[in-house]
């Protein structure tokens, strides 16, 4: 009997190997037969993600964008941020908090929580959990990446199990946003974990959630599957049975699988392939205002780049429009200044420096750089104008940009050497100021915050201002803008800061990267907006 079974098993294996078609994945359409038009419960959506989700606890190191996407489906926030940050500081809709109010002097903010919210183990979500999250956010042992967000919140008091009060040390435009930032996590389950070993605890093992979905399975480096939480307290409840996150590191594969119907959502389409997605009948291309922008960082303390005229000349000497259009296929906007054009604080009257090699030459001559008679290389006091332009290895967009910039600046007699660097050592070099120029990007939050990247870095090592830009007037204005609670007056200050920074050109502003989302046309009801791709995931449904 045993041998017979073995033979059968072997035959099955051989059969599978010989007939690969036999084990082709059934297409999703075959599996998900919609019964009628309109929203129906059931079905699943497969989302491509570039890297695996390492932690589902936001308060371990800094969660990246993908991790936050998943965490947002598993853990509640007090309120939900609305996609209106282009008009004013964002507004909020109720989520765990059903309502809130400010005190007379605006220094105290009280949240009233829903009474029907429960954790997946049946324990109610209470003010204690909100206070616990705040405690974690401030705890140095925990080391939450965004802890400076809570700088102006001194304490959080539990008034009663469903009322919680935030005390602020100052009044400013982003109070609601700062109070809301960070997800609420279960105090009763995670409060027992000693803080000393917090960073080295596997929270997936002790996962207690309270979102529209819960974790069904996770195969590291491969797939993470969420399923609908049957006892979800919020409204609306999700239609989808499952949300499946699939790790696909290579963007070209992401697109190929999207077009083949093996994946339904790709959050960051490479612009080169976006046109193909647009022309597909099965997939919709959604363009969302970008929150990341790219620039050439000139090390302002490097002898070559201390002179403002030189930095302006470099910007004038690069055909930015053509370069950006080439690598982004017309999908990206030219960046002009340090505030994204989609933000309320953006100064619409900023001058855009043209592509003007003649003016660039004149400025360089003024700064003492003369072409050498031998090969035309610019030299000053016998030193040639030559430097390494770093970019992260494996990032082809920035590599192409570096190569184009090299060609443009060569026409001015500047010798640029594009140099790839493996990412971690690249960051280390930027932090240490051990570089001349680098192709960099910033991811912006929905908050206008110029302090961390543009204020003069303090004497202590470490600042996000790795460009080492320093202008006392800008420092003064940034400090003023931070405490200005009137939006109109704040806008005037922000406008002036932008003018000053553009005049100084500490970096060459290049592009606002487009956010290109590819969504299968079988998914309905999706409101993909500037706040989040999965803004209304509960209302997504599967349909013909």
């Amino acid at each position, binding site marked *: 009997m045993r041998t017979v079974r073995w033979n059968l098993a072997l035959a*099955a*294996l051989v059969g*599978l*190997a010989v007939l*690969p*078609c*036999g*084990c*082709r*994945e059934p297409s999703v359409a075959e599996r998900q037969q919609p019964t009628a038009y309109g929203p129906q419960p059931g079905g699943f959506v*497969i989302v491509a993600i570039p890297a695996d989700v*390492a932690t589902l606890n936001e308060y371990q*190191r*800094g969660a*990246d964008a993908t991790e936050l996407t998943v965490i947002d489906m598993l853990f509640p926030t007090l309120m939900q941020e609305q996609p209106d940050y282009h008009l004013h500081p964002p507004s909020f809709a109720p989520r765990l908090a059903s309502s809130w109010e400010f005190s007379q002097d605006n220094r105290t903010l009280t949240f009233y929580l829903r009474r029907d919210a429960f954790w997946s183990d049946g324990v109610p979500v209470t003010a204690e959990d909100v206070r616990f999250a705040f405690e974690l956010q401030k705890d140095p*042992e*925990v*080391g939450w*990446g965004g*802890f*400076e967000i809570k700088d102006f919140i001194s304490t959080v008091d539990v008034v009663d199990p469903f009322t919680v009060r935030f005390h602020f040390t100052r009044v400013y435009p982003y109070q609601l946003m700062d109070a809301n930032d960070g997800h609420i996590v279960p105090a009763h389950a995670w409060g027992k974990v000693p803080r000393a070993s*917090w*960073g*080295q605890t*596997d*929270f*997936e093992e002790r996962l207690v959630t309270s979102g529209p979905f819960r974790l069904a*399975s996770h*195969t*590291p*480096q*491969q*797939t993470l*599957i969420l399923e609908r939480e049957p006892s979800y307290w919020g409204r609306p409840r999700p239609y989808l049975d499952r949300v*499946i996150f*699939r*790790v*696909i*590191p*290579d963007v070209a*594969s992401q697109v*190929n*699988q999207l077009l083949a119907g093996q994946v339904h959502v790709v959050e960051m389409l490479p612009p080169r392939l976006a046109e193909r997605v647009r022309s597909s009948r099965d997939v919709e291309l959604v363009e969302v205002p970008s929150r990341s922008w790219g620039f050439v960082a000139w090390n302002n303390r490097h002898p070559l780049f201390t002179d403002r005229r030189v930095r302006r000349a470099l910007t004038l000497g690069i055909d930015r429009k053509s370069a950006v259009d080439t690598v982004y296929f017309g999908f990206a906007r030219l960046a002009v200044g340090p505030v994204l054009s989609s933000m309320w604080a953006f100064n619409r009257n900023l001058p855009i420096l043209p592509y003007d090699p003649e003016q660039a030459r004149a400025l360089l001559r003024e700064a003492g750089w003369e072409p050498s008679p031998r090969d035309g290389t610019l030299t000053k006091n016998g030193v040639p104008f030559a430097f390494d332009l770093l970019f*992260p290895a494996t990032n082809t967009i920035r590599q192409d940009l570096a190569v184009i910039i090299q060609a443009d600046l060569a026409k001015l007699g500047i010798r640029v050497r594009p140099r790839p660097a493996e*990412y*971690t050592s*690249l*960051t*280390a070099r930027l*932090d240490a100021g051990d570089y001349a120029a680098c192709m960099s*990007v*910033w*991811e912006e939050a929905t908050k206008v915050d110029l302090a*961390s*990247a543009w204020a003069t870095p303090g004497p*202590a*090592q*470490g*600042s*996000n201002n790795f460009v080492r830009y320093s202008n006392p007037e800008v420092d003064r204005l940034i400090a003023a803008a931070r405490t200005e609670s009137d939006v109109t007056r704040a806008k005037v200050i922000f406008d002036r800061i932008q003018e000053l920074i553009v005049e100084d050109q500490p970096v060459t502003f290049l592009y606002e990267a487009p956010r290109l989302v590819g969504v299968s046309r079988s998914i309905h009801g999706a409101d993909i907006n500037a706040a989040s791709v999965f803004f209304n995931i509960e209302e997504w449904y599967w349909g013909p």
Partner: protein
Amino acid sequence: MLPWLLRRLLSRAIIVWLAATATFALVSLTPGDITQHLEGKRIAPEARERWRRNFGLDRPVPLRYLHWLAALSRGDLGYSWLYHRDVAGVLAATLPRTLLLTGLGLTLEVLGGIAVALVQIRRPHGFVDRLLNTITLTAYALPAFWTGLLLIYLFAYRIPLFPPSHMLSPTGELATGWQRAGDLLSHLLLPAVTIGLAGVGAIARYLRGSLLDERLEHYVLAARARGCSMSRAMWVHALPNALLPLVTVVGMSLPFLVSGSLVVEVVFAWPGMGRAMYEAALARDVPLLMGGTLVGATAVVAGNLAADALYAVVDPRVRT
């Protein structure tokens, strides 16, 4: 025999320790640390300092090394900063996947190599032999990352027979039993063939050479004289003899089984140990790197030891 083996084991253990120490020094001296591998995010410098403290990165390198050694002596491989799991857990999850892939690749390679060599040896220097010679040479020369891309282009996109990447499809992930096994196999085939192709050439060429030599050995000639057919003489007498040295060749490739083919795992998004280690190296996840090095170095050393032992069995003179 036994003291010889003990001495060997001891010296090999020292090698593993040396390799691990060298790796620790290399990773710790490489610029950048785990807190610096997030792209484009503004993280408060104070937060970075806190993480460094949490990970013990604020201590001097020699002290970190001693801590790691002390933990290791308790059998604790540490905690992976990148994956937020125990290093042992990460290795336990990824190592079997790599073994599966490289194991199948190696099997295909050895079986294919033997088959090709046997066909070739039927008529040495004949047309088939020459043709196969060219083919095996080509297979040997193909860069693995390129073969992989080619196979994906042809058999995943042009003629969609196989999935282009990963180990399981989402449907396979939810399935159990035979359906899951079938799904796994369909994902396994292209990368395993990619690995196998590179080796088939080497094995076939090696085996063909030694079989050619064996043809002229006395025992084969004697068998032929007894009226045994050439192919039978080859199968029964020459092949086992020619296979013995091949066993050591395969023994030497044991480390490859473990460390895996990084490029193949990258091209096929195979979630194995090669890729995990590559990502750990890029992110400076020191504990995971050290764990992987220990496993990898042990495999290298064990492979050598196995090869040595086999030699000793075959040729007792080596034992002195």
